[in-house]
């Protein structure tokens, strides 16, 4: 994050402004990825008018960064109408898509609307692996063709690779492919439990040994010694820190108008069909509770050796049953990185499981 961006984020936090919001326009999808956490049936998506109304409210609330995601955003027939409206309200729009519906004309239209970036999921350079994950034959070719159309238009494309057992070995080749296409690359080993709480898809997580290898890939994470070392002991100031930006300067709205702190933190906080977004943002008890939590308030994690270096996700902790609790997936990630078990792992006195997760990696192939 640039210095100016940090400054703006700090100011947004101080002013209580939701600087970044993700809206999932639909949960419907034309792929059936094996690791997806969504229910793809339509349970009553917001109408075009409802979304436009929401966008107006978000602009008034001070949102600058707007991510439109899904499901597959291009399955909405009104997608370009929504995008055009969002740009007319001067949002910095980022798109997430599998891109298989993007051909030359769609790419040109996206460019004409000055979209900031488009993130496209690519799971392998090998069609037999990628297409087996998406369960759509030919999907790799279509997604790669789309990236080429987008690049011809001069758009910023980010290739997003989700690491799982099916494609553990392939990320270096996907990264090379992204470079060849002129796209950025991001690697995300986080398999998220399904929104209905079903955790069965977590079995797809990469094994500890594979994650250890990723964490020691110098070309990906930079200085291995620094990255894998234990953080300094937490002091009082460290423990006053916020767990993450969810609910503080970031927020999520589902296709049905449900507001959560983050797409990965499905804590019901209100619904924009009943209450204006800004009122939910300011007055929701759920969001107020999220905002009240500091690292010192986490009963297990505050005393953990990893507390200042851990990428603990409060959403994953919430999905484990306690938003103030540890997230076992992040404990295992800290273990894979440093070889030192977390307080949570020690308290459970259980051997480290074969399943691990790490959180979102930043673009340019480095781990944030």
């Amino acid at each position, binding site marked *: 994050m640039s210095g*100016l961006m940090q*400054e*703006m984020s700090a100011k*947004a936090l101080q*002013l209580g402004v939701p*600087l970044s919001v993700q809206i999932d326009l639909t949960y419907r999808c034309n792929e059936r990825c094996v690791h997806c956490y969504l229910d793809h049936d339509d349970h009553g998506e917001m109408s075009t008018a409802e979304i436009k109304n929401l966008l107006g409210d978000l602009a008034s609330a001070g949102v*600058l960064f707007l991510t439109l995601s899904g499901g597959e955003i291009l399955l909405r027939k009104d997608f370009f109408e929504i995008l055009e*409206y969002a740009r*007319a309200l001067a949002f910095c729009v980022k798109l997430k898509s599998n891109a298989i519906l993007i051909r030359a004309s769609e790419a040109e239209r996206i460019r004409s609307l*000055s979209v900031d970036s488009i993130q496209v999921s690519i799971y392998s350079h090998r069609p037999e692996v990628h297409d087996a994950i998406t369960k759509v034959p030919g999907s790799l070719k279509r997604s790669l063709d789309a990236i080429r159309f987008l690049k011809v238009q001069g758009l910023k494309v980010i290739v997003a690779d989700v690491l799982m057992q099916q494609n553990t070995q392939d990320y270096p080749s996907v990264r090379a492919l992204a470079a060849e296409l002129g796209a950025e690359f991001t690697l995300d080993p986080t398999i998220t439990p399904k929104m209905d709480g079903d955790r069965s898809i977590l079995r797809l997580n990469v094994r500890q040994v594979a994650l250890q290898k990723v964490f020691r890939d110098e070309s990906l994470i930079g200085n291995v010694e620094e990255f894998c070392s234990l953080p300094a002991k937490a002091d009082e100031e460290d423990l006053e820190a916020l767990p993450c930006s969810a609910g503080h300067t970031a927020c999520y709205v589902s296709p049905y108008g449900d507001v959560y702190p983050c797409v990965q933190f499905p804590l019901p906080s209100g619904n924009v069909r009943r209450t204006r977004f800004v009122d939910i943002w300011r007055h929701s008890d759920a969001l107020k509770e999220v905002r009240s939590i500091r690292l010192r308030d986490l009963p297990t994690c505050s005393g953990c050796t990893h507390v200042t270096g851990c990428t603990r996700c409060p959403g994953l902790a919430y999905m484990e049953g306690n938003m103030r609790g540890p997230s076992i997936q992040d404990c295992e990630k800290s273990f894979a990185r440093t070889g030192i078990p977390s307080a949570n792992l020690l308290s459970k006195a259980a051997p480290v499981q074969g399943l691990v997760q790490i959180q979102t990696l930043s673009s340019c192939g480095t781990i944030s």
Partner: protein
Amino acid sequence: MSCKLYVERSPRVAARKLGDEVMIMSGLDSTLFTLDEVATIIWEAADGSIPLEEIVDSKICAQFEVERGEALLDATELVQGLAGHGILLLSSEPVIMPNSPRKAGQ
């Protein structure tokens, strides 16, 4: 200046007011900028229909203790700099605004 200078917010940027500043993301290269209080006043008035000197007279000189010539010089330098980053569009003619929901950064 011998001719009038009209300034218009570029439709290619993303912008939002944060407190008394405006954050602007350039559509050219995704560079983030912030405008201070005075620059924000010019940005907000830059709808392409009012000459810069009128903006300076009515919005800057009216609010701040500043000499008109100096204010106009500073404002001209500012808008030229922003135009260089693709944030503002400059013209010697007023821009006819189409009907649109644009509320860039306001």
